[in-house]
């Protein structure tokens, strides 16, 4: 038991590692602040395009979305980070992470938003047009607010996944929370920093998990 406490709940090491873990935590928050809006923007773009009637736009777009949903994000990230320099294009850790998340989470957000847009009855569109709203006004004031509301639990759920996924940036040496924790662990030969990092993730994300759980149950119950 003492060995366990020594290896996992070592107060001395937790205190010593706290400053760099705090730096990592801030980087994780910055990553989230970068990747969530990027993914959402790409998702809105893809989703709006995929509601077009022209098949030559819709089908290739669906194919691209499916490809990026099929490739594990870590594979995409490593392909961009370690592969692209061979083509003479070095994005650096931040660039590779930004592009990988744009493509991966953009594809997921696009699928969710497309489902949301399709859930808004066509009559809403027609009624808004009949009232004299311009095309963009129809989208911004009538269709999208209802679409987003209908898929809100999925949007929050995906956002939670994106924030958790920022931990893969540690693999390309971006100094976020998990990376710093592993650095501290390899210097001290002690797992306490990783446990502290896990607790930090949990404290950060638990409120969102609770909220999501409530929203999801309400959604399932409403389906009766």
């Amino acid at each position, binding site marked *: 038991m003492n*060995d*366990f406490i020594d*290896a*996992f709940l070592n107060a001395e090491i937790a205190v010593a590692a706290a400053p760099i873990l705090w730096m990592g935590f801030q980087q994780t928050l910055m990553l989230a602040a970068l990747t969530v809006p990027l993914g959402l923007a790409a998702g809105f773009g893809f989703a709006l395009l995929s509601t077009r009637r022209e098949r030559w736009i819709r089908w290739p777009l669906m194919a691209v979305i*499916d*490809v990026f*949903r*099929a*490739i*594990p*994000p*870590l*594979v*995409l990230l*490593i*392909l961009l980070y*370690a*592969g692209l320099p*061979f*083509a*003479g294009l070095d994005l650096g850790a931040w660039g590779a992470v930004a592009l990988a998340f744009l493509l991966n989470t953009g594809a997921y957000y696009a699928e969710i938003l497309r489902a949301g847009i399709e859930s808004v009855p066509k009559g809403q569109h027609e009624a808004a047009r009949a009232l004299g709203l311009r095309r963009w006004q129809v989208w911004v004031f009538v269709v999208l607010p209802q679409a987003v509301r209908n898929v809100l639990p999925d949007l929050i759920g995906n956002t*939670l*996944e994106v924030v*958790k*996924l*920022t*931990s*893969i940036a*540690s*693999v390309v040496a971006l100094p976020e929370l*998990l990376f710093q*924790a*592993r650095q501290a*662990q390899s210097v001290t030969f*002690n*797992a306490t920093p*990783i*446990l502290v*990092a*896990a607790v930090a*993730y*949990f404290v950060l*994300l*638990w409120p*969102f*998990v*609770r909220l999501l*759980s409530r929203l*999801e*149950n309400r959604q*399932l*119950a409403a*389906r*009766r």
Partner: protein
Amino acid sequence: MTGWDGFAFSFLNARVAADYWPKILEGLGVTVALAVLIIAAGLALGLGLAVLRCLGLRMLDWAIIFVVDLFRALPPLVLIVLIYFGLPAAGIGFSGFWATWLALTLVLMAFAEEIFWGSICAVPKGQWEAGRAIGLRFLPTLRLIVLPQALRIAIPPLTNRTIAITKGTALGSVVAVAEILGAAQSGMAFSGNPTPLMLGAMAYLLLFLPVVIAGRWVETRFAWRR
């Protein structure tokens, strides 16, 4: 070398591809084995926890909710690293393969419990009462009446979640599992050429693109009448 030749030499190099495709294929086998083990254990545990929650014991419910929340809030990679680098210090060693399996199984268990439980709750209460009224005990009511209806509701979200978590097997490469990504990365390191990485990406597409497309189909096929 001109642009295209250089690109082809780097990314679609036939000689490198010929050397390393057997490794990637072995990696594909490891990925599939890992995925099957995760899905089997994760779904079974998730269903088990959801059934336990049907008993309505308050302390047990709280414990289950906490465990589920925990594994929904922690990033899978953090769990893998914690199990792989952390537990040996406590005297429990896991190989990279089993550390990845355990972490992703726990994550799938948590998400599956949440989906199963939500679906069971979505089955009208009258179905329970009718089952009990015709003389069925608790478990037969659950198994014969409630679960078949709940599963129908659970299948679309469960399919998508299972695909997403199965893709997490790529995280195993971080703890030296020679699955597709791990094999591709060591191939790239040995050959100094990213062609193995391209092969790996193609292997993932081969494996997951049909599943993603099938997931789309399942979503429309099982859509609850709305």
